[in-house]
């Protein structure tokens, strides 16, 4: 059985906690790596503030999702959207928001995409208004721009 947990002196003069994945020796692991489950020397972790799903109307409007708390800074938000008009049932794409206002999207330009989707993609490529606005207490999805292509947005908000 390998050493999985250290609580105490984790390096000379440094006290903290480290944890390894099953089968890995925590004493031999780097601070960051796939086998390091946790290390108190990290500067940040991935605590979830809130996650859920929002239903977007097919109209020009905005959906606001409150975190329920006010965070010290604008958080990382992971998003994925379900295509409203896809010929493939339950088809999703990921929308990653790392900046204060996201401007990039991985668009599912698969062969079964409709003409409207292709046109929307072009519009998004050349005229990308901010469609997700992130704040320290809420996110706002603007359905009038690129997200009119989606009827649902699933999201995960990570604590800064």
């Amino acid at each position, binding site marked *: 059985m390998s050493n999985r947990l250290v*609580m105490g002196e984790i390096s000379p003069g440094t*006290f*903290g*906690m480290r944890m390894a994945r099953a089968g890995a020796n925590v004493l031999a692991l780097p601070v960051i790596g796939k086998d390091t489950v*946790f290390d*108190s*020397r*990290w*500067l*940040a*972790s*991935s*605590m*979830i503030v809130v*996650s*859920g*799903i929002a239903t977007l109307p097919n109209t020009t409007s905005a959906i606001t999702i409150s975190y329920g708390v006010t*965070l*010290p800074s604008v958080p990382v938000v*992971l998003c*994925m959207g379900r*295509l409203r008009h*896809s010929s*493939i*049932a*339950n*088809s*999703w*794409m*990921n929308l990653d928001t790392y900046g204060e206002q996201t401007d990039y999207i*991985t*668009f*599912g*330009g*698969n*062969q079964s995409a409709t003409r409207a989707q292709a046109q929307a993609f072009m519009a998004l490529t050349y005229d990308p208004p901010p469609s997700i606005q992130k704040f320290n207490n809420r996110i706002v999805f603007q359905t009038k721009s690129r997200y009119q292509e989606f009827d*649902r947005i*699933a999201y*995960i908000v*990570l*604590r*800064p």
Partner: protein
Amino acid sequence: MANRILLGADSGGALKLRVSKPGVNVLTGSLNDMLLDSDEPMLQVIDSGVFPGVSGGQTRNLSWAPLGFAPFIYIYAPNGSISMNYTSDNAAVLRTSSSSAMYWAIFNVARG
């Protein structure tokens, strides 16, 4: 040196494990100052991988052990675009528009 780890009762008497960020006293820090709090959910990668060198328009099937919910899945293709459709709560089909690797990661969060 700051107190970094609490294992036991906090000031309110609740039993928990907390680890604060470097330089923060775990006994006085807020939740935003914590790296770990046993009362708070953490984002976890359940599984991840890559389908290398997939030709444009082709698909790859992805499945995972049933979780009791459809999980949030991150997908990424360095070239072109990528989409995914869930065929059940523990299976999905990934598509890419152009020849590319398809990366994926399954999280412990329900997609909804």
